[in-house]
């Protein structure tokens, strides 16, 4: 090791040095974690595509051209450079629909998790921090929620209220909070008896203040991992609901809906279902890899 560098390390204040070393280690671990890097890159690319959709989509995703129905993608002999991924049964450009579809999936994932993380974390932290009767009540609510068949209840409610993006987001948000509650409850129980919480209590901090400034930052790592898991689950569920015709409604280019619309052509034009399905797979895979990566890096001991 370089001698001057060594000396400078000793001169630095110990806690500062310790922290910068930790941060460096975490960053290095992240970069060495192949799954995290791959997932992160794919996810960033999809987010970028979704944000830039109006500028990079070659065509209007809603424009129909009945003369150009079911043009195959480029890798087929009859491929056409004007439509790199071909067209669907109504002659709409498949690449453009795919690009705009990324917006719907990401929007569903983010908004659903926003709702469900608030509900679930609130319940979980309440149960974990107060224990006793509050814990019993929350555990009961979680059991009730788990006993309800998600897809069925979501389908029925969306059908009765009327399918739209907002309805799907609300329904999924109010159904998918269970894992947040379970994980937050467990990690709050762990943190609750820590010395710094006792110190804050002794110093006379209010409960709300302790929950927000002391507890929340310490359960955040767990929270982030659950966020990725639930985002993936919400995206898959929206796709399933839309596939069953009781989610996002046409002509919106939801990937699940694209598979559903392509189903009748799938025997002779299989790409109409393989392309949107592969997009869904890639997005969910990327989100899961990022989540797994964060878990491995922040809490290697919980790796299974």
């Amino acid at each position: 090791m370089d001698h001057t560098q060594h000396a400078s390390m000793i001169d630095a204040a110990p806690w500062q040095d310790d922290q910068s070393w930790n941060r460096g280690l975490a960053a290095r671990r992240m970069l060495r974690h192949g799954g995290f890097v791959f997932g992160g890159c794919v996810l960033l690319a999809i987010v970028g595509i979704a944000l830039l959709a109006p500028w990079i989509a070659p065509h209007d995703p809603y424009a129909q051209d009945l003369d150009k129905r079911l043009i195959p993608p480029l890798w087929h002999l009859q491929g056409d450079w004007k439509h790199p991924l071909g067209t669907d049964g109504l002659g709409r450009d498949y690449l453009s629909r795919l690009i705009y579809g990324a917006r719907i999936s990401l929007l569903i994932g983010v908004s659903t998790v926003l709702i469900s993380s608030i509900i679930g974390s609130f319940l979980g932290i309440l149960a974990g921090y107060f224990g006793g009767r509050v814990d019993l009540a929350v555990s009961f609510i979680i059991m009730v929620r788990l006993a309800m068949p998600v897809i069925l209840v979501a389908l029925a409610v969306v059908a009765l209220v009327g399918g739209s993006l907002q309805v799907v987001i609300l329904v999924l948000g109010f159904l998918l909070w269970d894992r947040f509650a379970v994980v937050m409850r467990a990690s709050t129980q762990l943190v609750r008896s820590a010395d710094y919480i006792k110190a804050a209590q002794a110093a006379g901090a209010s409960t709300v203040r302790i929950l927000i400034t002391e507890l929340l930052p310490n359960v955040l790592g767990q929270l982030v991992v659950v966020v990725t898991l639930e985002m993936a689950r919400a995206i898959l569920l929206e796709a399933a609901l839309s596939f069953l015709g009781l989610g996002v409604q046409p002509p919106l280019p939801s990937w699940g809906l694209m598979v559903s619309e392509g189903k009748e052509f799938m025997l002779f034009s299989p790409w109409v279902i393989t392309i949107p399905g592969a997009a869904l797979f890639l997005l969910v895979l990327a989100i899961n890899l990022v989540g797994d990566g964060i878990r491995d890096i922040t809490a290697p001991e919980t790796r299974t």
Partner: protein
Amino acid sequence: MFPYMLRRIGLAVAVAFTVSIVSFMLLRLSGDPAAALAGESASAQDIEFVRKKYGLDRPLVVQYLEWASRALRGDLGESAFFKKEVREILADRVWVTLTLGGMALCFAVVVGIPLGVAAAIRPNSWVDRAALTIAVFGQAMPSFWFGLVLIIIFGVALRWFPISGSDTLAHLVMPAVALGYYATPAIMRLTRAGMLDVLASDYIRTARAKGLRPHSVIFKHGLRNAIIPVVSLASVQFGFMLGGSVVIETVFAIHGVGFLAWESIRRSDLPVVQAIVLMLSIIYVLLTLLSDLLNGFLDPRIRVH
């Protein structure tokens, strides 16, 4: 053991009741059930007629109590579409779904447990990494899409299996795979984690030290102890699969409860939807109860809490 059992059974009954209340209210409050039943072309008078006929004009609490007390006696009402007892319709269909769920669970267990054991025997080997990769890939695949891909490859191109319907067991092979693969990663991961724990324990070291053959150590002493949590996970997964059958049965046009649920939702046949939601929740509650009791029986420490 007895007080523990009693407590768990009481809790299960309470959960089932609460679920029935919540799902009843959810379905009644999400829209106007009378308008949905009457159909799109119905006039205001028609809707009023339907509302009176099905008693939808009374307070919700009264409606719920009547529905629940009938359901307790095994009367789930009459389907608005089939004009038949819901109970009879369900009795016709439930076996297909249970068979499908059972086959799916078999698939998940037969693939998941050996992979988990193989991964745990040599952690960080290529087997381990391959198993983890399969798990990560499996969890990212939309089940309806996987079902369609199976149809294209094994149904249409190779012609190995029939692509729709539920007349024979061969009809259920592809749906069972499409339904079961999603549970495989969870079962594999839990088996792996359990095996890693057990294989590091003292009694395994003793078994090895006294010269038992490796496969006897792994399977007779190791797996038998690692499998307990997997059994309870599997029973819970079975409950989830019955819920997931809505999607898979629709993809493969299998005339089970899931497909019936989807059709009934589309035709606003509320009594049938209500009954299926109730049935699936009760099956799930029973499964978790069973796995809790099994765990309590196998591990006395759990009973104390």
